[in-house]
């Protein structure tokens, strides 16, 4: 007996199987819409509004709380910059956990946007001899200084260049963001980032519902999915409302400074003009907007 293995029959069967799977899975129109959703940058105002409305409903069903998801665009005439005073930082890691809370980062598997590196004063800024695992009774430890590293918000972000689907881009206010719905999880951007600032959701992100921050931004701290990349956005949900990022507000020694690089009267511009400033891995010419300085 001759088996029918023709291309025609294969296509016939596969299409039948697809349709029946779709029908059987009972997936609702919303999930279907989300699947077919376009890149955030190409969405119209109406499309954005309806997507956000659906998201708010979805989150309410899932977590039993009211959420506010914003899609506020960049404020005109702003370019965000950040400065961190290396002479003040004591390495207490308060910023790390304030960030986790503000940005709804997965607790397990653990994701931290900020990694505080302990370095030896004798060696200077030397990544090879630094550690993030220090855990003494009290900080700062004698003979060491601390360099917190997070997304450096490069002016020439290579994570953006390598993205094969344009799921990540630089906003007009300089913040590099990710469209979690568009990200395919290829992790090219993680390989391209020399600061280790991008993080992949290897598992379903786990955030206790009672600890969820309900003030969200579509490109920022809304709940992520498994299999997408995320990163620090200078707390886009706060920065675009005029507020300081969470890490700035929590810092007990006032080492973190944030502001508008286009405003000549801002703290950040004062630092650039009056202090000794450096950027990490300057030789790569990614031109970070995250500066380190020595205040005293």
């Amino acid at each position, binding site marked *: 007996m001759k088996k029918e293995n023709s291309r025609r029959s294969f296509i016939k069967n596969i299409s039948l199987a697809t349709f029946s799977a779709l029908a059987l899975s009972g997936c609702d129109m919303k999930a279907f819409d989300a699947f077919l959703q376009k890149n955030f940058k190409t969405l119209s105002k109406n499309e954005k509004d309806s997507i956000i409305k659906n998201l708010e409903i979805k989150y309410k069903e899932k977590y039993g709380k009211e959420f506010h998801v914003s899609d506020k665009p960049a*404020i*005109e*005439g*702003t*370019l965000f910059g950040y400065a961190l*005073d290396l002479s003040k930082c*004591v*390495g*207490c*890691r*308060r910023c*790390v*956990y304030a960030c986790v809370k503000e940005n709804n980062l997965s607790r397990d*598997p*653990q994701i*931290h946007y900020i*990694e505080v590196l302990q370095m030896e004063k004798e060696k200077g800024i030397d990544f090879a001899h630094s550690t*993030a*695992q*220090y*855990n*003494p*009774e*009290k*900080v*700062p430890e004698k003979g060491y200084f601390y360099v917190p590293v997070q997304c450096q918000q490069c*002016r*020439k972000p290579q994570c*953006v*260049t390598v993205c094969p689907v344009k799921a990540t*881009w*630089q906003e*007009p206010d300089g913040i590099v963001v990710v469209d979690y719905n568009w990200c395919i999880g290829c992790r090219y951007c993680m390989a391209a980032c020399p600061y280790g600032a991008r993080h992949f959701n290897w598992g379903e992100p786990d955030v206790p519902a009672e600890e969820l921050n309900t003030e969200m931004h579509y490109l920022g701290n809304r709940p992520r999915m498994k299999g997408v990349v995320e990163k620090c956005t200078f707390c886009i949900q706060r*920065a675009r409302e*005029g*507020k*300081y990022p969470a890490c*700035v*507000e929590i*810092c*007990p*020694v*006032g080492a973190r*400074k*944030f*502001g*508008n*690089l*286009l*405003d*000549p*009267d*801002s*703290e950040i511009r*004062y*630092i650039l003009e*009056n*202090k000794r400033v450096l950027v990490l891995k300057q030789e790569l010419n990614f031109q970070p907007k995250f500066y380190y300085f020595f*205040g*005293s």
Partner: protein
Amino acid sequence: MKEGIFLVHLILFEKKFNMKDKFYRNIKNPGILWALFIVLFFGCNNMESINKELYKVPDEKEGNKKTEKAIEYAVEAPPFSDGIFPCTDCHANFPPKPERRELVEWHDDISAIFDHDSENRWCLDCHDLNNRDSLKLASGKLLDFKESYKLCGQCHGEKLRDWKVGVHGKRTGEWNGRKEYLLCVHCHNPHSPKFEELKPEPPPVRQEDIK
């Protein structure tokens, strides 16, 4: 770029058909090398224009826009220890003694921790002998406790300058609007100003510990 790749495919493919398995011989043909060179050259040029599009960010020199003049608010001076202010409640009953000495009966808690150039200074370098509810500048001018930062600034002028522009110390609130700043004494104990050591939050999970 896409057109370039297509061109290469076209050339290679055509030749492949002509020569069948002896395709690689064709590399000797300088025509193909030229085509490759041209494609690469123009391809790179195209790439540059794509990059420019990607990095569309306002130029700092062009922009130079001022955000609205920031409004600053001092937060309340930190509270005194319970029942210690006004100082005159007790001091009114004692005759003022201007000579330097070790305090034993009262304020011994302060003398125990006092570490602020203690070799050369003592209480009455900052507190006024006759008006106990006031601080005193080196010039003798009396100063309210709310303005203590001026007293600190006598010696720490550089810090005061940085603090005024928001670089030393912590500001909270809005980066483009209402800001709150802390006074020196919110973070530094004036009698022992060195920053206290802190217990660090737990370190991140090691990669090798992830199950």
